[in-house]
């Protein structure tokens, strides 16, 4: 496809820019992809007509613009696999459902393993996936080379490629197109998308939320969904809720445009996470910086290490140029799994903690969260992802499967 072609696909009309109404049935706080997806599904699946999304900046200014766009569902834990597989199935129908070319491309996601321990864990994940109905297959080093010829499978590597697991149904989608597609679809269903509107407080009467105080005035709300990604702790605190999240920088980068040659490749041991966008630029995720930050920049040595590791696996990238780097604020929970569910405040719901893995979850996150808001109780798919698990100890720990959890 021509590098600029998708720009020509953008439709003539995306969304209205309405002023807020005095009140809504549901107000979603946060106009990132998960917020938009929630609003869309509230209207589409649950027939709730009076829905608004309030966003302090601009729609999609969150994980949508700061991720590697890799989509996969090969998570280790049963609860995670079920949720992410639900997401992937929605991705598979979204282009049609949203009536928008989001360039969802199932080119495969290959996760490389470099030592015996990783191979063991790779197999564990693969077998678990297969039993959970998630496609996953093992490639030995030779098969890795055939699947992606530019991977360096030489035994001379410091950490030679021992093999990898491949999810063929995994792939990428065009992030900006997904924002436009969802926002347009929500707008068409009557959702008010209100940008430049920051929430400064909550009206809570007798333990129940009744409205929001915003920079565009008070907005009454029957129900409120908080989908503020890295800002969620600040928002939740306004409502008196403590959420165990840490906001940390996750760096990503994009290269200049080169000829297509790559599916999506992940190497946890080397912290390499790379895909090639439709235009041809390489998109890479680097490791997460360990410290709390809202500065939207991470530490340079993370990039240096990332590049050194990438050139181990892909020596051909040596003279590709780093064009642009950025750091998103990711909201990370102690077990690296999201929190989607009810809160101690009635009719106030929480969807956060997607950490480094939120883009791929966009469809299902909104789908289950809309269900939770509409019914006042979680769907079976997100029941385990409750806020109270940190108290009971019933964590959904994904660290076991993935060192660099993206």
């Amino acid at each position: 496809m021509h590098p600029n072609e998708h720009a020509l696909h953008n439709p003539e009309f995306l969304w209205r820019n309405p002023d807020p109404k005095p009140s809504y049935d549901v107000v979603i706080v946060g106009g990132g992809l998960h917020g938009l997806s929630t609003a869309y599904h509230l209207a589409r699946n649950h027939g709730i007509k009076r829905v608004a999304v309030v966003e302090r900046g601009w729609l999609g200014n969150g994980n949508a613009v700061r991720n590697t766009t890799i989509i996969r569902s090969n998570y280790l834990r049963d609860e995670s696999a079920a949720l992410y597989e639900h997401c992937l199935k929605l991705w598979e129908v979204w282009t049609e459902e949203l009536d928008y070319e989001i360039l969802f491309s199932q080119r495969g996601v290959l996760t490389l393993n470099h030592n015996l321990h990783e191979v063991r864990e790779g197999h564990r994940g693969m077998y678990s996936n297969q039993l959970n109905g998630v496609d996953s297959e093992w490639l030995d080093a030779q098969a890795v080379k055939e699947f992606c010829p530019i991977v360096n499978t030489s035994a001379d590597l410091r950490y030679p490629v021992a093999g990898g697991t491949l999810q063929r149904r995994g792939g990428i989608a065009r992030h900006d197109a997904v924002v436009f597609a969802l926002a347009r679809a929500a707008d068409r269903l009557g959702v008010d998308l209100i940008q430049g509107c920051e929430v400064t407080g909550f009206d809570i009467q007798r333990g129940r939320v009744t409205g929001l105080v915003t920079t565009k005035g008070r907005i009454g709300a029957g129900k409120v969904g908080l989908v503020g990604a890295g800002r969620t702790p600040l928002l939740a605190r306004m409502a008196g809720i403590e959420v165990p999240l840490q906001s940390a920088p996750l760096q990503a980068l994009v290269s200049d445009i080169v000829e297509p040659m790559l599916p999506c490749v992940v190497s946890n041991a080397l912290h390499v996470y790379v895909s090639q966008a439709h235009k041809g630029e390489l998109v890479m995720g680097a490791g997460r910086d360990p410290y709390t930050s809202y500065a939207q920049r991470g530490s340079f040595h993370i990039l240096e290490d990332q590049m050194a590791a990438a050139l181990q696996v892909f020596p051909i990238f040596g003279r590709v140029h780093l064009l642009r780097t950025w750091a998103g604020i990711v909201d990370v929970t102690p077990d690296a799994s999201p929190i989607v569910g009810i809160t101690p405040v009635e009719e106030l719901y929480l969807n956060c903690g997607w950490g480094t893995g939120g883009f791929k979850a966009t469809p299902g996150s909104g789908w289950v969260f809309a269900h939770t808001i509409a019914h006042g109780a979680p769907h079976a798919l997100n029941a385990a992802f409750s806020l109270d698990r940190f108290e009971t100890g019933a964590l959904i720990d994904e660290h076991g499967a993935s060192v660099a959890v993206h």
Partner: protein
Amino acid sequence: MLLIRCPWCGEREETEFRYGGQAHIATPRSDVDDASWARFLFHRDNPAGPFAERWVHIHGCRRWFHIVRDTLTHDITRSYLPSESPEDAG
């Protein structure tokens, strides 16, 4: 890429240190209820602004110490010993 002042060794690159999370978290008694214990284990302030946090000079003198760092700007205004409180550190 932070430049951090170890109270002992002086200014060093971030790569010599390891992050230790929020400072001044008191360990509760082991007979507290589950909610309090969960708060101790998992809940940390996550401020957009000055934050007192722990670091260890892992590749240097191996001492733990505290800094106050602004999470919006990454400016570091104080570096002090664990025995000091953020207020009395100069």
